[in-house]
Structure formats: C-alpha cells, structure tokens
C-alpha cells in the first residue's frame, strides 16, 4: 500500500501549498487560473535552466581557467 501513502503525502503537500498561498479561499476557477499561471512560470524557469545553465557553467569554467592559466604563466 505504499502507493496510497505516497498519494496521501502528495495530497497533504498540495493542501499545504493551498493554505500557505491563500488558494484555499479562492473560487475553483480562480484556483485553476492561478495554478496554470504558476505552472507555466515554473516550466519556463526549468526550461531556461535546462538550456542555459550548462553553457554558462562551461563559459565560466573557461574564463576562470584562462585567468588562472595566465596567472601561472606570469609566475613562471
């Protein structure tokens, strides 16, 4: 019955989200609208992270390694 426990945990988590963000007092269509907007924003953030973060990390690594490499050639 582990599946039921997981489901209970997620419904508890959803209830906490509703309580904290004041969704529990909104009417159902307002809740759906807010959830949609929030999920869209989160999806966009995740997509941007997925696309851009490896490129940024690679560029930053190259920049710092070039600076350290330059520094080491100076000290030589």
């Amino acid at each position: 019955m582990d599946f039921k426990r997981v489901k209970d945990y997620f419904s508890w988590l959803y209830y906490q989200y509703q309580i904290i963000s004041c969704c529990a007092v909104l009417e159902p269509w307002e809740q759906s609208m807010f959830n949609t907007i929030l999920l869209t924003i989160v999806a966009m953030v995740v997509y941007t992270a997925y696309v851009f973060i490896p490129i940024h990390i690679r560029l930053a690594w190259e920049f710092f390694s070039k600076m350290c490499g330059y520094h080491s050639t100076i000290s030589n």
Partner: protein
Amino acid sequence: MANPGGGAICNGNLHNHEKQSDGSASGNCPKNGIVKEAQQNGWPHVYDKPLVESFEEAPLHVMVFTYLGYGLGTLFGYLRDFLRTCGIEKCNAAIEREEQKDFVPLYQNFENFYTRNLYMRIRDNWNRPICSAPGSRFDVMERVSDDYNWTFRFTGRIIKDVINMGSYNFLGLAASYDESMRTVKDVLEEYGLGVASTRHEMGTLDKHEELENLVAKFLNVEAAMVFGMGFATNSMNIPALVGKGCLILSDELNHASLVLGARLSGATIRIFKHNNMQSLEKLLRDAVIYGQPRIRRAWKKILILVEGIYSMEGSIVHLPQIVALKKKYKAYLYIDEAHSIGSVGPTGRGVVEFFGLDPRDVDVLMGTFTKSFGASGGYIAGRKDLVDYLRVHSHSAVYATSMSPPIAEQIIRSMKFIMGLDGTTQGLQRVRQLAKNTRYFRQRLNEMGFIIYGNEESPVIPLLLYMPAKVAAFARHLLNRKIGVVVVGFPATPLAEARARFCVSAAHTREMLDTVLENLDEMGDLLQLKYSRHRKSARPELYDETSFELDD
C-alpha cells in the same frame, strides 16, 4: 490571601472614610483596600512575582508567506473588481447609484476593497447565530452558502453541544435558568422589564442603589454608579470628566469605546506604545515641561487611559509602574477593567487586587458586568465626590435609559456569589478554578509549540495564525469537530497578525480542556501552526536538582 466570605476585606462605605479622616492609620481601623493579614505585617502586599509576558515574533518565512498570501488575494481582488466594473460578473456588494458616479467615490478605499474581496470569501466564520445559553457548551445553527458567502441560508439543523471557547464567560455565570436565579425571577415578577426613564427623571430604582452600594463594597471604594451599557459607560463618561485644554494619554491598543469617548471629549490625545512605561514617561515629561501646544500653559488635567486586560493581546497592564508615574507627574488614572474584573486577582476583584495595590490610588475604576457577571451594563467607581459629579453631569445619566431591574438583580446575585455573601464558598472556588484552568491551558499550549501572546495569568489567550487561509481553515475544521472558537483578522488586529482568541472559563472541566487541546494539537499538525521556537519541555528541568551524583 483573603478569607472566603469577604470578612477580611473591609467595605468602602462613607462611614469608614469619615472615621479614617481622623488621621488614625493603624490599630483598630484597618485601611481601605488592604488585606487584614498583610496589614499586620506593616506594609501592603505588593506584587513581587515577576510578570511573565511573551509576545514572540514569528519566523521570517511565516511573515513572508503571509504577505505573499495577502498579495495574491489583492491581485485577485483587482481582477474581480475589474470583472465587476466591466459587467462580466454581477456585483453583489454595495455600489453607488448611477447618478452618483461622478461624485467622490464611496467604496474605493482599502477597507471596502478588503471587505469585498478578502473578508467575503471567509465570512462564514463570523456572526454565527447560536441558539442556547452561552455556557461551557452551546448550540450553533447550521448555515450554508450557495454563492460563496454573499448570502446564507439556514438548513434547519442545529449543531448541538459545541464546546464554547469564545464567549466571555469567565466564571461560568452566563448559564440557563437554575434555582440559584430565583431572586432574578422574583424581581422580574415584581418590577417587570422596562424602566422607561432615565436616571435623572424617574429611572433610579432601589435596585440600582442596592447594586451601587454592593459594587462599592466589592471594589473597596467609596462609591460607584452603574449604567445600562458597557460601551456607553466609556464613551459617555470620559467627555464628562475631561474637555478642551486637557490631555489624554491613551494606550495604543485601547478599545473602541475608550477611543470614542476620548475623541468626543475634545481633549488632546497622545498615544503611548502598548504597556511601555518608557514611552508613557516620556510623554508625561513632555506634557509637564512644554504644556499646551501653542500657548505653553499647563494642561488643565492629564488623564491616563489604560485597560486591565487587553482583549486582543491578553496582556495585563503594568499597574504598579503606572501608579508610580502618575503620582510622580500628578496625573489621573482611568482603568477600564472590562475583562479583568471578576477574573484576575486572588478573590476576583480585578487588576488592583492582582497587584496588591490600594484602590484609592486609581482615580477612576471602570468596568463592565458583561464578562464575568453574566449580565450587561457598566460601572464607574472611585471617590464619592467623583461619583456624585458623574451622577449630575454624565450624558448617560441624563439621556440614556437606566439598567433594567432583572439585570441589576442578576449582577447583585453574581456579586454576592463571588464575594461569598450567599453563605457558600463556591464563588471563590470558581475564581480559583478559572486561575487553574488558565494556567493549565496556557502551559499546554506553550508546550505544544504554538505562539501565544500575553501574560501568564490572563484568561484571554490569543493563538497566532498569521495566514488568512489558515484562519478560515482553522475555524471551519474546529467547528466540524464541535469546538467553537473566535478568530480575529484584519481591522481588529494588525494585517499580518491574525489570531484565534480563546476565553477560558471556570465552567470548563479538565476533560473539556483536554478535548480542545487534543483537537488543537491535530489542527496544529495539519495546518503547520506550531511556529514557536521556544518550545518548553513537558518534563521537569534537570538543573533544579541541587546535588549531582558526580562525586562518587
């Protein structure tokens, strides 16, 4: 401690005062207001235990989420208002008529916006009709709403035996009829209900005089006067005491009746921070040094307005320091003991007895009979010349109908019950039971980890909830579990500090309190309300032991 039966506390009649003005302060003539045993020690019993108050701040993430929640509610409020003005949605709230659209807008300020968009969504937690006496258990009428709280309808069912944690029923005297109320029934048969006149015309009954003598005796003062309505006692008598050219120093969190009375009087009002003696002293010094604002003359009178117990915070006023300040700067003191009369103090005589002070130190003692006595109305007590002045000059005495006789008899009965004059010690037992219940409830709530405001000994217990959705969920869930609580939100408290306010009663048994505490524990876990970082352990502290087994 005073003996039950009230014999040790001497009464405050005029005769005693005349005897005392001979100058004899010791020996056969005990001083007014000072307990006999303490008098034998030579000095009055002053409150020497430290005042334990806590106003813990919430963790930062809680405040952030609270404001985010309100922000989201505000955004949706703007959206709904836009839909209403466009005509897409029907507007159920109050709007101006077509002809008034070009005038100054009536419903656009924040209060109305908040009411329309935030309060309406959770409105079903307030104004719930009940249909029984507000004892320790009561019956609530069930109601539902089909259009998200704009209108309600009653289903016809009654929720029976809901545990009452919201009524101001501190000593359990607001109950349905039983044989001890026989005298009230007799007075009802003899005098009827309506008085049909004001105090100045033909509305002063012998019942009022009996009641006023009893109130003066209860409080150990010279005289008292009673009024028909507690709110009107404050708002109609402060204008009779102070006027233009006087200064009122009023606490930040005073009740609306005090604020209204102060504004009606026309005096200058300055506000000091809640229960903060440094703030009050600074204001007093500035008032005495600089006088009136432009003409620099001395103030005619300086009146300090405080309450005994503040109902939204549960804090008790720091009376000894205020009395010391008042004597130093020659100001007058007005205490509103609406919640504290009958509920604090070893024999239930209010904050003055709680701190062991002399009632003659306080110039005007005001209180209401609504909370601990199970009736309605208010009183003002103090020196005889003050009360005589109010009998002539109070607006309430001139224009308002006086107290109804059965209500006066109910107060007489309750007061005699508390003082022990009816021959039993049940009154004193109830006061002690209330103190015990208060301490137990507060201690358990602190152990569970909730944030509780106020003094350890005050029977009014605010439990902080902070987020608006939790406020609604809390009240609804508890009503489903047959516990009735009062939750308070924005206009009565600061925006981010919504709370649930419990009023412990002497009529609550240990089992009822335990039931409530269990349910609160579950609600606290379900809604994640246990914010306190100073959770006290239920086990006794180990460092109380004086010897350790280290050296063996």
